[in-house]
């Protein structure tokens, strides 16, 4: 944790990580109660990545995420209410309740999902970057994906095309060491993901994804590099998910010891500790943050509960764009 940090920034990073953690803890509870259904992929343990990376992007930048995208949407600025309502499947959700947990969308914030086929977002991100590039916009497209995506052809095709055309894409690999239940060393011949970028002439670095400051610093540097028209860049965030792949599983693929060891490196606890050590954080601060977040979550749940179900008559709405709406 090298970079110096001021108290305001430190508290904000902590607050964002806590928002994700508490929001998702609430999601788990609501899932257990049957309020949230389907798949629910929680981000708990990986909060430092979204919290550190997302603030590096500007409103004109585009974001493409995976099915584990609650945190990214929260930090991008989509209010918690519509996100919770989306998880409920209510019409006041951020995608009218159509997508649920895996498919958050927010056009106003250039948040393009929530795309839940592994590696399926990479080509779309390349295209968004191409559109910026062809229209001489200075935007960056941030494309998040997991270590599992690295095994897909679309990863390699997309890196190649982005590099070939020198497109402003930031490839952001959240390596949590497991493609669902298959460990990295069981699915990759080369486990050093950052090195794969070499083959395409794309600069890359691996950073500690449990360290929010390291994430922020690396992402900012990379985003600047891309924004300046230097072509794509790849970051591998080395992180870990504390919970099951989707809501619950028996976790037969990893040991309790391993999970416990990673929990020692909990990004929130360790950052909190760091802030305390350098005297930027006090007990009252944490209490204040927690109280505000608890209230925000309660409000989000109330928003979701109060939401309407989309009428069945609207089932076929938006399969196609209404004719008059020329885009």
């Amino acid at each position, binding site marked *: 944790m090298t970079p110096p940090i001021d108290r305001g920034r430190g508290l904000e990073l902590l607050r964002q990580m806590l928002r994700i953690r508490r929001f998702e803890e609430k999601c788990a509870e609501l899932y257990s*109660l049957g309020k949230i259904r389907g798949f629910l992929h929680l981000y708990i343990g990986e909060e430092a990545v979204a919290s550190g990376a997302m603030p590096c992007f500007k409103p004109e930048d585009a974001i493409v995420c995976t099915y584990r995208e609650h945190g990214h949407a929260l930090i991008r600025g989509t209010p918690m209410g519509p996100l919770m309502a989306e998880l409920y499947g209510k019409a006041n959700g951020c995608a009218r309740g159509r997508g649920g947990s895996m498919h958050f969308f927010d056009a106003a914030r250039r948040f393009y999902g929530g795309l839940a086929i592994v590696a399926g977002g990479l080509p779309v991100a390349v295209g968004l970057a191409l559109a910026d590039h062809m229209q001489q916009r200075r935007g960056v497209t941030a494309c998040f994906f997991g270590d599992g995506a690295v095994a897909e052809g679309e990863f390699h095709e997309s890196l190649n095309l982005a590099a070939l055309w020198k497109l402003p894409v930031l490839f952001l690999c959240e390596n949590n060491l497991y493609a669902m239940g298959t460990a990295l060393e069981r699915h990759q011949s080369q486990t050093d993901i950052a090195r794969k970028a070499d083959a395409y002439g794309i600069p890359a670095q691996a950073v500690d994804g449990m360290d929010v400051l390291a994430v922020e610093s690396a992402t900012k540097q990379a985003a600047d590099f891309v924004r300046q028209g230097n072509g794509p860049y790849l970051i591998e965030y080395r992180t870990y998910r504390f919970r099951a792949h989707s809501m619950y599983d028996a976790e037969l693929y990893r040991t309790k010891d391993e999970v416990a060891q990673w929990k020692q490196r909990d990004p929130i606890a360790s950052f909190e500790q760091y802030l305390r050590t350098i005297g930027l954080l006090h007990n009252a601060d944490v209490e204040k943050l927690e109280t505000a977040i608890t209230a925000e979550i309660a409000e989000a749940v109330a928003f979701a509960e109060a939401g309407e179900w989309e009428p069945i008559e609207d089932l076929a709405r938006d399969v196609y764009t209404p004719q008059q709406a020329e885009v």
Partner: protein
Amino acid sequence: MAEFVMPTLGSDMTEGTLIEWRKKVGDRVTKGEIIAEVDTEKSAIEVESFYTGILQQLLAQPGETVPVGTVMAIIDEEGTPIEQTKAKTETKPKKESAPSPVSGPMVPPLPEPGRLRISPAAKQLAAELRVDPSDLKGTGPGGAITLDDVRAAAVVSKEEPTVAVDRQARMRETIAAAMARSKREIPHYYLSTAIDMGKAMAWLKDENLKRSVTDRLLYGVLLIKAVALALRQVPELNALWKGGAAVQSPDIHVGVAVSLRQGGLVAPAIHHTDKQSLSELMTRFQDVVKRARAGTLRSSEFSDPTITVTSLGEQGVETVFGVIYPPQVALVGFGKVVERPWVVGGEVVSRPVVTASLSADHRVTDGHRGAVFLSAVDRLLQEPAQL
């Protein structure tokens, strides 16, 4: 106070079995702590408490299977823990229900004006039972006439049937079924050729002069015999279609089409046609015609023909485009014998000419073999004495 309920642990879980409690009554439980182990259909999963407090009551026993949402324990900061496990109270998860879909089955729209809304099966049955569907009121979807409607109408009209009508109707049904099947299944091809009957007619005239009136031959038997002998040369046409393939018949049994006065027709077999003399053929022919009209044909005569010959010359028809009688694979038709200008040795002369046509199953033979057959018939009729 908080209730610990059987959690939903997956998108497809409806119930779970408590394997064990990891906490006992009176223990302090903190949020996120494992409180129990639950078995789902997929695996055993440790489940956490979402509340902090003292475990007051355990309401489910290890081994019990309960629906999702069932209260299994009470957690509270205050109160006296109750050691005894009490009967559980079951509560459904408090879930608002989303509206349920209402989509009715699709009803086919009304047919064009003037067309009857009747199912194909009902239409067919109506034809078989001689029920006029336009008189019926349908009870099916949108007023469609169904099988039941036709059956009901048939029962009502059954009061006045006559035997004759029945037999005739049955025959019509049989013909309808056979001909429909033929046209449905058999890819017909058609060939025809005009045959100079000069020699045959002349020979017949001479021959008949030698015979008594009752023994005289009709020219039709020459045609039947010629067909039978020509089949020896093109045996593929003397076959039956069975189970997806043609099976050639070792014997030649020509069926002769006989139209009945009250309507309809039959085509009984003249067995071993090729082996009969013309006189024998004449006798047999007269016999089957008589019995056909009297309704006393034997069943073997119905089922044995290996090919059919039909002659519509008496009705003044010149060319026949016949429909094969399944499972046969060919039908030979003859029209009227007419006087035609005909070139013989470079000179136009008038000759009696008959048009012979072949309808054949294209699955079995091709036009080339059909042509060989027709020219064999022609050749045979040029040597009437050899018949």
